[in-house]
């Protein structure tokens, strides 16, 4: 079991702005404020500049720069052989990305929205995830699949889902999700540098979130979780857009006299349990929040594992706050569907009541 690899930042705004205190302390920082989507763009550009076999594939990522403009300007800069507007077929995109990886490329695939990854599911699970193993290590498949995911944007069906469970359950895949511009900038580069397939989940609600990016030095390895707020009574854990909701809940709880520690999971597979267990051993209570339906989910895994490994330290069971076990509802109900600070506080209360 690993131990936390990062110092906690001790403040929710630092986490929100993404200023890594560790990095800031260690090296002369080149800190620039930029929105999350721009940080991704900068990270992609850096990766493309560093290796001419890094290549982008997807629908509308070229001239248009992607529907969220994450790839804006990349085709103009690197040409249409490196930033491909592909035919409209997700299985085709992932399947040919696999072939390109066999030919020595490092493809970065954009899936336009969470709900449209499923036509590619066979190529992802039976091929991409398994080929290195099938080949007994003779080849690597450094393919990154970028998926804008999650709710909060009031969009129509298939545009607000959180499909991480499907990928986190699949051996051979790595699954990560940044929650700040700084993490976006570094994690996308680390994902591209990984020799394994990485499902890269971009919390689309955060694309417009501004924060400081330290372009000189990464603060944490790709698969580390991070304590983003210190607290003593309850540990709150989540990833992606939920991290800011957890921080909000922690701030509210503080005003009511409850001290919450907040952990940003960052990596959903593998999960870095060190900081979480360390935290739970101190607080004795934990709440897990996620947008995805709760039944058989990443939250189930974290809850089961934490209860298994910190059994005697727990004063209450791990309480999960999740999307309900229904399809993501019409946008007018997303406020009810998505866990918010109030629902997290209700769970905190339940945990404290044990």
């Amino acid at each position, binding site marked *: 079991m690993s131990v936390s690899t990062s110092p906690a930042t001790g403040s929710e705004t630092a986490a929100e702005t993404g200023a890594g205190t560790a990095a800031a302390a260690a090296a002369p920082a080149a800190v620039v404020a930029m929105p999350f989507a721009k940080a991704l763009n900068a990270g992609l550009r850096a990766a493309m500049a560093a290796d001419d076999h890094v290549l982008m594939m997807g*629908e*509308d990522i*070229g*001239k*248009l*720069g992607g*529907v969220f403009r994450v790839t804006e300007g990349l085709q103009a800069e690197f040409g249409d052989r490196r930033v491909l*507007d*592909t*035919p*409209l*077929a997700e*299985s*085709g995109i992932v399947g040919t990305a696999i072939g390109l990886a066999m030919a020595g490329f490092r493809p970065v695939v954009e899936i336009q929205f969470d*709900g*449209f990854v*499923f*036509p590619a599911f066979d190529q992802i699970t039976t091929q991409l995830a398994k080929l290195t193993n099938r080949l007994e290590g003779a080849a690597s498949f450094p393919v990154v699949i970028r998926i804008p995911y999650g709710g909060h944007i*009031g*969009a*129509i*069906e*298939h545009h607000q889902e959180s499909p991480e469970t499907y990928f986190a359950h699949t051996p051979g895949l790595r699954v990560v999700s940044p929650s700040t511009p700084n993490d976006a900038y570094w994690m996308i580069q680390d994902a591209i540098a990984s020799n394994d397939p990485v499902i890269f989940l971009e919390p689309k609600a955060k694309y417009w979130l501004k924060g400081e990016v330290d372009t000189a030095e990464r603060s944490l390895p790709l698969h580390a979780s991070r304590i983003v707020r210190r607290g003593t009574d309850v540990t709150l854990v989540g990833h992606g857009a939920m991290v800011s909701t957890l921080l909000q809940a922690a701030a509210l709880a503080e005003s009511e006299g409850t001290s919450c520690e907040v952990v940003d999971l960052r990596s959903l597979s593998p999960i870095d349990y060190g900081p979480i267990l360390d935290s739970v051993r101190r607080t004795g209570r934990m709440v897990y929040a996620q947008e995805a339906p709760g*039944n058989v989910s990443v939250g189930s895994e974290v809850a089961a594992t934490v209860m298994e490994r910190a059994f005697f330290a727990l004063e209450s069971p791990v309480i999960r706050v999740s999307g*309900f*076990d*229904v*399809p993501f*509802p*019409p*946008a*007018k*109900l*997303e406020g*009810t*569907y998505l866990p918010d600070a*109030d*629902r997290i*506080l*209700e769970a905190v*209360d339940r945990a404290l009541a044990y």
Partner: protein
Amino acid sequence: MTPPDDPALVRVLASDGTFAPTPEAERFLPLIEALTDADLETFYRDMVTVRAFDRQATNLQRQGQLALWPPSFGQEAAQVGSVRATRPQDHIFPSYREHVVATTRGVDPIDILRVMRGLTHGGWDPTDPKNGNTHIYTLVLGSQTLHATGYGMGLVFDGRCGTGDPERDTAVIVYYGDGASSQGDVHEAMVFANTYQTPEVFFLQNNQWAISVPVATQSRAPLHQRAAGYGMPSTLVDGNDVLASYAVSKLALDEARAGEGPRAIEAETYRMGAHTTSDDPTKYRTSDEEQSWARRDPVARMRAYLEGRGASAAFFEGVDAEAAAYADDVRVRTNELGGLEASTMFAHVYSDPHPLMAEQQRWLADYEASFEGGAA
């Protein structure tokens, strides 16, 4: 992106509205000659009305009344022509831009707006006769082609086509786009349709673009040529010519209903507006191109044709007034739309009772009640 000049093209009306059938159109002329003046006026009225609605919806989105609007602007002739060729018993499987198709079959435009406002994922009940067997929109591109094919298989197995009784024989028509044509599901739908000889028309609206991607990226060969590989007859039609679109659809649907198997149509048209209200087409296409297609506007073309046949100014004014009233009514009713009960989230996830739904609905109700009591 130049106007289609494939020798296989079926076109009846030139861009300026003159009656000028292409050689391929000859065999369809009897179907067009059979149309009454009232039919022609209906085609025109349909197009103008839904265009007004479409413009209204775009405005409503700008005013914050809708989350999104995917305009049908420019594709009215393809849609009116094909849907007016259906019979009441036929089943319609749209993609998500078929506003003209849906409303012409009876779907209340407000029901489409409710989807785009975030009040429902479906919008209307395809089993309610008032909706003319129009199935709901499908957003996962291409997947509806398999549903249509399955429905067609059901028609075959139940003996609901090929009996020779035109009142009873039923067809399905499925709409999809040039972008969607690349999806594996469309291929599999064509495979199944031909194997089971479904009474089905695959209606491809090639509007030249899949968001920012030109049709040339989907295929270097004309898309209508795909059908032959499955053993399925196909027709290329000028989708901005409502008469041609009607005639090719009518023949294909009649043949399908009669049990002759599936048919494919590629309608060359153009998305004159943005992909959706979130889109900015200036990023990826030229105004030259847009203007060249504006000259082929399906509504103007039909108007010129009707004018040539002597339709009166009063007729056009009347249609415009009706369309304006229709669009106004949509605006008024949109503003009146209410909210959504949270409990609806759990109501239809399953048809049969389900313990998790009951439990979570109860939890949510208790939780919400706790606020009303001033707690938390």
